């Protein structure tokens, strides 16, 4: 059964100031949403609210067609934040294998990690400590985490931060690949990402135009 993400009347505020109100969204399997807007308009807060990391004032987030309908939605999401959530002292492969195991993946996480690294262009670097990588490479390794966690909905906050143009194309390919297999992608970015057929959301401080 294909999945569908349905957001109804979502609102959140920072302190007393509302950031967005009464936000509604429906994304079918293979759908994508690009969130754009200037700095400080609440792109990250929006993503964190969707991820359940930031308390919403109102509204519901539902994932229809999930394997376990009783589970909270956040468990079907994978969130790629500003920070990479990788340990400098562990090797890249150890980091990825840990996240694969921790998100409850069966199978062979070590092989998954190798494959994922190949996809993001870090093949053969799995044995290096994460701290040895450059900023762009660290970001790419964090993107590989999306591939080992196997979650239907990706939430990406500035996925292309610190990446060069070639790697931006790689991110676009990753997103396209995920959508092709029936996944949903929600990405916040201020760089022009080429995501065909994506809904657009421009955040401009208080008012939201969808």
């Amino acid at each position: 059964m294909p999945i569908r993400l349905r957001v109804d009347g979502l609102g959140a505020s920072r302190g007393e100031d509302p950031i967005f109100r009464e936000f509604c969204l429906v994304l079918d399997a293979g759908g994508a949403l690009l969130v754009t807007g200037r700095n400080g308009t609440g792109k990250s807060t929006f993503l964190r609210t969707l991820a359940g990391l930031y308390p919403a004032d109102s509204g519901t987030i539902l994932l229809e067609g999930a394997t376990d309908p009783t589970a909270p939605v956040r468990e079907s999401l994978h969130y790629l934040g500003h920070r990479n959530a990788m340990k400098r002292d562990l090797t890249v492969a150890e980091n990825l294998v840990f996240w694969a195991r921790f998100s409850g993946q069966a199978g062979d996480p070590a092989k998954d990690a190798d494959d994922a690294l190949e996809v993001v262009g870090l093949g053969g670097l799995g044995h290096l400590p994460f701290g040895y990588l450059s900023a762009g490479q660290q970001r790419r390794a964090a993107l590989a985490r999306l591939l080992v966690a196997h979650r239907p909905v990706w939430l990406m906050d500035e996925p292309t931060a610190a990446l060069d143009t070639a790697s931006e194309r790689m991110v676009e390919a990753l997103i396209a690949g995920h959508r092709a297999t029936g996944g949903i992608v929600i990405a916040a970015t201020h760089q022009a990402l080429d995501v065909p057929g994506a809904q657009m959301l421009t955040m401009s401080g208080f008012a939201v135009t969808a």
Partner: protein
Amino acid sequence: MRERSLAIRSFTDLANPTRFVALAGRLLPWLASLTALLFAVGLTLCFSTAADYQQGETVRIMYIHVPAAWLSMMGYTVMAASALGTLVWRHPLADVAAKCAAPIGAGFTALALVTGSLWGKPMWGTWWVWDARLTSVFILFLMYLGLIALNRAMDDAGRAAKVSAVLILVGFVNIPIIKFSVDWWNTLHQPASVLRLGGSAIDPEFLRPLLVMALAFTCLFFTLHLAAMRTEIWRRRIAAMRRQAARGAASA
């Protein structure tokens, strides 16, 4: 002839890590077998000599305890000399030497403490007294461990070397002060009952095995130190290669 050329080359080669590794590789088997030989002779002497009429069998503990205590001090001296090499002459191998001497020195200091306490139990009736000499060795042990922790806590080898070199030298300068203050503290509180060891001249009967054992332990120290230094050079090479690999992948 061969030894001679080795010695001459070693002087000029010491500064070059690659040649040092090669030299260490050639030297290590010899040093290791010399150590083994000395230990074989030393241990035979240890157990063939008669027991002391005063201390009985426990005198045999001395053959380990004294060399270990000697090495604990020599290890720190090696570290201090290397620290000087790092800070003053910026010798590329000095910080490697300092870093590698720490765990070995700490090991021998621990051995000196343990054997001292095993010697003290039958002699004084207690495992440990806060006697000036023992206390100083214990402080030395803590200093070693602190340096090891410092080295482990910093991932940049070069920076760690400079910082720990400063600490080593301050510690080295501080040793007489520690010794003096501990003496002071001890005489201030000294309970009269504590027995003092030795002081008198040692019978040559005991001196011979002691000297051989001291030599054997010293050889062991340098063997281990050389091997550890070689490994440390490898470790740094690995770190450099990993960085290079990360850069290489970025440009590819």
